Each structure stands twice: as structure tokens, then as C-alpha cells.
């Protein structure tokens, strides 16, 4: 296969995907902002704490894998300690995600 042709094809595919990701991220951010605004209206401290944990879970753990569909809360601390080492989480992120796993 012609190298130049294949490189052009790949660049085109990724350009389209980056465009799609941008649109998708923009709409997700907008939805997130609207959701945050509506939550702020009924500001509840536990809700914002849970929100921080949700966000940090998505930013750290979900970058590599989906969350297990269910697990015993007895080992949530072990999971977080494992993730703290694997994902180099800060101590604050570890606490926030632990609260997210054990609301």
C-alpha cells in the first residue's frame, strides 16, 4: 500500500474523529454546566462532595477502564489504595473518590 496514501487516510480518519470528539465534548460540557448550575441552585454540600467524587472518578479511573458494575463496599478502601498507586492519585482525589464509591 502506498505509504503517502495510507498516511493521508489515517490523518483524515483521526481529523474526523477529533472533530466528532470536540463536538461531543462541547455538548457534554454544556450539559455538565447546565446540570452544575441547576445543582448550585439547590446547593447541598453532600451533593457537591459527591459531584467532586464523580468528576474525579471520570477524570482518573475512567480514563483507562469502566467501573465494575458492582462490588462490595467492604473493599472500596482497598480498591482506592490500589488506584492511588496505579493512577498516582493525590490524597485528596483518593478521599473524594472514596466518598463517591461510598456515598
Amino acid at each position, binding site marked *: *500500500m502506498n*505509504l503517502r496514501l*495510507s498516511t493521508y487516510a*489515517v490523518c483524515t*480518519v*483521526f481529523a474526523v*474523529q*477529533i472533530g*466528532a*470528539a470536540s463536538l*461531543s*465534548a462541547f455538548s*457534554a*460540557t454544556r*450539559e*455538565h454546566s447546565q446540570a452544575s448550575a441547576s445543582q448550585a441552585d439547590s446547593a447541598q454540600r453532600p451533593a457537591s462532595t459527591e459531584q467532586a467524587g464523580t*468528576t474525579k472518578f*471520570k*477524570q482518573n479511573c*475512567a*480514563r*483507562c*477502564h*469502566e467501573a*465494575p*458494575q458492582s*462490588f*462490595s*463496599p*467492604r*473493599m*472500596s*478502601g*482497598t*480498591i482506592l*489504595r*490500589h488506584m*492511588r*498507586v*496505579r493512577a*498516582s*492519585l*493525590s*490524597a*485528596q*482525589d483518593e478521599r473524594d473518590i*472514596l466518598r463517591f464509591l*461510598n456515598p
Partner: protein
Amino acid sequence: MFKVPEQPKLRVFLLTLFTLLSLAKGPRVAAQDTPLISGGVGFVTSTNGGNTTYIPVVSPLLAAPIGNHVLVESRATILDSFFPKGGGQPGYTSDSFLGLSYLQMDYLATPHLTVVAGEFLIPFGTYNERLTPIWISNFESAPLIFPLGNMETASGVGGMIRGSAFSNGKVSLDYAGYFSAASTVEQFNSQRSSGGRANLYFPKTSLEVGASYGRLLQNTHQNYEGVHLWWEPADARVKLRSEYAHGPHSQGYWMESEFHLTRSPSANLFRRGLQPVFRWQQTFRSSPDSSDGLPSADTNQADVGLDFHFPHDVRINSSYSRQFSSTGDRNIWQTGIVYRFLFPTWRGK
């Protein structure tokens, strides 16, 4: 009555398992700190150049906290490969494998520093530490440049420091640095090497950039450099991952994207579970080296896959790859079904 297995590898693994569990069990273990057994069990088929290999595999992971600052963890891979006998002979033959990926003790020294000792995954690039578990990877095969910087064994025996240097709402910086001694002990093979990695992550744009460095210190000293860029907007339908690595005799890169038809939890199972994936790879050889693990000639490879996530942590990966090289083009078909398990080691309060 329990019989001690004859195979030394199995003995090592079982000894590790029982040692971890006995170390972790104690009155200081908090309610949320029950040791766990996780991992994946799967069945993979790979058809490469017309030959099909069948691979049943199990990859258990153990994690056992001790007190408030220590975690002992280990992951192993046990598999059997069934492949054609070749040479015109009918039938299949098999080859079994048991290997420890890591067996390490982590000491959480400060909020910004974790000290690791034992056998650990080499922190070069992203694939080795993040995407090698069979229940995580989108493709059944590793990228072509995977051997670069991973010092042949992908594991080191020695010490590592790592952690989050700082983190706020705008940016976070994490790091890892290691030194590995040479080891020929069974299950703990490693090369004498050192290196590390640093990542910057920008949470608002979900962009991660990082750089890796590794230096082989055994026999001829060689340097390896790598950079990576991941862009994974939260809740977006597309994720992009890419990595470049450079070695003394070759270099290459891969770019991978995964696409989700929907992120809505209320969507039907089919739309939620289906995940097309695409990966493009190129390797370039600057001088001959039969030991660095990369193809002997410049190679392009396109991987197109369709994964499906079922309920209860079951996933199916399927992919078709077309490899272009001056040594010959070829097709690679791969499928795999993997179940991820996760449970505590014993019942708690």
C-alpha cells in the same frame, strides 16, 4: 487433601497468594480495607497468516492492605496456547505459561510520595501500566512498539518512587522513577535499568501529555525516549490515545480511538455496549537489531475492532488487522471474550 503442585511456577504463585492473605489478615484491617481478588478470565483466538491459536487465559490480581500505609499487590497471567503442529502434521499442540506481572509492596510515605519495592511494571509510556490487563485493553494484541523502553521483560526488580507532585482544578503533575537490578530468578527476570515518566493532566480539557525515559544499564547501555498524548473528554463519545517511542535501532508510534454510540445510561443495551475501536501503528527501523522486539522492516498496521460490553462485566473484543511491510503483507484476526471478576477475600462485618 491438598497436594503441593509439582510445577515450580505454580508453587511460587500459590505461595505468593497465601503469603499475601496471611499478611493482610489481622485486627487492624478496617471495614473498607478487606483484601480483594480481582482479575479476568477469558478465551482468545488469533488467526495470523492462516494459523489459528486458541488461548484460554486467567489473570488474577491480589491486593491486600496492611495497616494504613502499606499495600501488597500482585498480578499473574496463566494461559495455555493451542496451535497447529506445523510441518504438515495434523492436529494441535499446546504450550502453557505462568508468569508474575508484578509482586510489589507499596508504602504510602506522604500524600505526594509512594515508595514501591519488589517486582513492578516498568513505568515507560502508558500501555504497560494501564492497558495490559486483559479486562481493560480494547485489542487483544499489544502495540508493535510495546517492547521499546520496557527492557525486554516489562517488569523491573528493585525500587520505584511515584506519586502526585501537585494537583489542583486546572492541572496535575504525577511522576514515577525507578531503578531495577538484573535478575535471572525464575518469575523475577529483569534487566538492570533505570528510568521514569512524568505526566501533566489538564482536567478541564481532559488532555494528558507525558514523557518517558529509560536507560538500559546491562551490557551495552542504551537510551529509550517516549512521549504520549491522551485526550479523553469525560462523557464524550470519543477517546483518543497515542504514544511514540524511540530506541537506538527503531522507533514508532500508535494512535487509538474508541467510540461510544451513547453515554446515556438509559439507552438500550445494544447502543450502550457497542464500541467500535480503531488503531493505527507505524514502526521504522534505523538499523538491524534482532533483539529489540520490533519488526525487522518498516511496518504499517491498521487495526479495526468492534467490542461489546455485556452486563455483569463481560466483554467481547474482535478485531481485524492488516499489516503492510516489505517482508510481506498479512491479515490478523482476533477475538476474545473476557469476564472481569472482583470479590473480597472473606466476609466482613
